[in-house]
């Protein structure tokens, strides 16, 4: 019985043909993961923070906490 002749050429090219699409795919997945895991949530967090932000209410809370030097707490 005779064995089939093994592939003896183009072995590195075959390896590249297998791995390069995976490399590109993984890098696109990494970019998408960062975009939807970090970038978009951060944009949304800032938008949500300022959507209903009451600067005077926050200022009053900070003032009563005593963090400012230009304006002291009123003790209310």
């Amino acid at each position, binding site marked *: 019985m005779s064995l089939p002749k093994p592939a003896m050429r183009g072995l590195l090219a075959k390896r590249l043909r297998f791995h390069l699409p*995976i*490399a590109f795919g993984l*890098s696109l997945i990494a970019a998408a993961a*960062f975009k939807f895991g970090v*970038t978009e949530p951060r*944009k949304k967090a800032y938008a949500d923070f300022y959507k209903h932000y009451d600067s005077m209410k926050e*200022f009053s809370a900070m003032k009563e906490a005593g963090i*400012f030097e230009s*304006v002291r707490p009123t003790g209310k």
Partner: protein
Amino acid sequence: MAHPTQLGFQDAASPVMEELLHFHDHALMIVFLISTLVLYIIIAMVSTKLTNKYILDSQEIEIVWTILPAVILVLIALPSLRILYLMDEINDPHLTIKAMGHQWYWSYEYTDYENLGFDSYMVPTQDLAPGQFRLLETDHRMVVPMESPVRILVSAEDVLHSWAVPSLGVKMDAVPGRLNQTAFIASRPGVFYGQCSEICGANHSFMPIVVEAVPLEHFENWSSLMLEDA
């Protein structure tokens, strides 16, 4: 201010800093894309004994790895230039403050209406009150009205300094004999810290900047009080 184990930027307190944050996220996404690609290829190539010594050239791959980086660079450049021009817009400031760098403290001059000026020295560690931040607190803070465009004219009296407040997205070199202009809007009330950002001698690390953003009415009360005390 920064906190221990912090990796990213401080929370943005001005619209420009928010834009810078988002641009940094965009650029970092591209960095991860390229780094993942390169790392995978490196591992795939070092983990085999297969070689090919007979490829001399390939027009196709040369075109791909010229065009693709050019496209990526354009994708980085366009938002970058957008922010650059955004930062340079005429913004009609409500207030102009001069920040002068000295060895080793900052002085602030509010000369729009009256002549208000004061020095801002770091509070030494042994004089800190409980809850205050080491190497960041100053005896007099630069108070500004919140949600108002403020122009800062930065210069120095002796050597190079740099006026920087990371959460406001501001950094401007203080050069003796030169007036540099920058501007910001504090989006919310609060206290924002920065440090001198150009080596200026022995106490370069000990001349911090503290900006206090308060409503206009309180800013006016503060400036009247400061003028009375002067």
